[in-house]
């Protein structure tokens, strides 16, 4: 009996040792942030009213609903959303943060002629584009309560701004061209060092209690090939100003360009405007060095809309 017991103890010890023979991956060693080569430290810019200033009346109810949709469209605009992103994924602080494409930067600039549609679009039509592309869903029809609430939220936030005047902090910063052509391998190094902790080694983000905490950066649950974020310039500007979260402007410009290229050199859902073939779709909608759609990276032709290479 005694020998059986000791055998069991040995077995369990051996087993415990085997079970845990894989070394724990050490968290990345923190090091001093690299100096930024061009930190667009915010000059003075428009300050939107605080959330506490949302009026307690029927107008305010639409403002508050717009904010809720903005923060959790998968819940409050479910019929029009096809991925795990929220508006807030790319427009930080509930659409209020300068250099993170704030709503107050966009609202006063519409109606506007857009080269993307070759037409003059209203703000509501611009919001439809967000659902079609960034949310990989379908556009709410004009006049839909979702669009009304979102537009009301943007209007409320922009009170006091001049119409038709581009404000400092609008959109994402435009970085100067990088010294070195953006590169997949260098971008992967930046990704592993500065991004994977939150967005995961495979870029698919992390969820908790059914809620997206860190958004997926590519793949079936991310924005599709028609979204503005697929342009490397937009992604580089957003990343430089805002990532890692709360530590914007700590990456160098080159790191931001490289990791933006790396992110956008992965597969994502098909462009809903796809017609005939990838080359034809590239020619029609992605005819710029800024888009990797229809190009071949690491032997993979991007734009197939399938699994990640």
């Amino acid at each position, binding site marked *: 009996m005694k*020998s*059986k017991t000791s*055998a*069991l103890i*040995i*077995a*369990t*010890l*051996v*087993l*415990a*040792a*085997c*079970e*845990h023979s894989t070394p*724990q991956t*050490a*968290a*990345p060693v*923190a090091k001093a*942030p690299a100096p930024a080569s061009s930190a667009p430290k915010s000059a003075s810019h428009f*300050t939107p009213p605080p*959330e506490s200033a949302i009026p307690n009346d029927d107008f305010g109810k639409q403002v508050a609903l717009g*904010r*809720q949709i*903005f*923060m*959790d469209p998968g*819940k*409050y605009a479910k019929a029009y959303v096809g991925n795990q992103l929220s508006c807030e994924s790319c427009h*930080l*602080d*509930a659409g*209020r*943060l300068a250099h993170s494409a704030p709503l107050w930067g966009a609202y006063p600039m519409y109606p506007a002629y857009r080269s993307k549609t070759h037409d003059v679009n209203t703000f509501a039509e611009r919001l439809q584009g967000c659902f079609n592309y960034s949310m990989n869903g379908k556009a709410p029809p004009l006049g839909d309560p979702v669009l009304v609430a979102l537009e009301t939220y943007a209007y409320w936030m922009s009170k006091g701004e001049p119409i038709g005047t581009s404000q400092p902090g609008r959109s994402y910063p435009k970085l100067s061209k990088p010294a070195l052509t953006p590169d997949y391998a260098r971008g992967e190094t930046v990704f592993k060092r*500065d991004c994977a*902790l*939150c967005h*995961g080694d495979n870029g698919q983000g*992390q*969820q*908790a*209690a*059914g*809620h997206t*905490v*860190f958004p997926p950066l590519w793949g079936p649950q991310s924005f599709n090939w028609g979204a503005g974020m697929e342009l490397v310039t937009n992604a580089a500007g957003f990343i430089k100003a805002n990532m*890692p*979260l*709360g*530590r*914007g402007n700590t990456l160098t410009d080159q790191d931001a360009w490289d990791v933006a290229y790396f992110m956008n050199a992965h597969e994502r859902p098909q462009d809903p405007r796809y017609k005939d073939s990838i080359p034809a779709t590239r020619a029609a909608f992605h005819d710029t060095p800024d888009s990797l759609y229809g190009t071949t990276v690491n032997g993979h032709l991007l734009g197939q809309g399938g699994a990640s290479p």
Partner: protein
Amino acid sequence: MKQTVIALLMCCALWAGATSADTSQGATIAQQGNGHGAAPCMACHGADGGGQAAAGFPRLAGLPEAYLRKQLDDFANSSRTSATMQPVAMALSDAERDVLAAYYSKLPVPAPAASPPLKDDVAQLGQVLATRGRWSNTLPACEQCHGPGGIGVGDHFPPLTGQSSTYIGNELHAWQQGSRHNDPQQLMQSVAGKLSEADIAAISAWYAAQPAGVPKESQP
């Protein structure tokens, strides 16, 4: 015959899986220490792993296994300092740290001790910082990394609920002063550097007053 028995027993152990073995070894160390220098964990962290609020000893039950393991390693190699925990962690072998991390990560989350009702202004500030942040100072909301309701996310972002205000306050001060610096990518040092004394008091009190382990209906 004896060899056959041993082989059979090893198979049984394999079939049973390592979990029960880990759990029983972890429970033994937690309750009795390891017999060569590591005191019983429960003396400070409680029989249920819920910690001791008044003393600021943290809850361990239900924390991510990888996070617990990293903290033990960090105490052992002095990259996280604590007069109490460093000698304990140094006295634990690699395998013992593994079984303890596994044991505590699988314990059910105990109900937190009742905390006094919060003053309105403290509750309001705590909730704003927890759920909104203060982006005028590039301060993200706590839950943007620690998850809705502060329930924790993945291996690197531990739950904040079920921790005492004393523990949360102590750690925020330690990040702020640089005496704790084992955070990946200096994320917590960066965040804590943007907090005032009133902010720290409000966040600590607010999270201590939240239900533990129960995902709240998120209020965007």
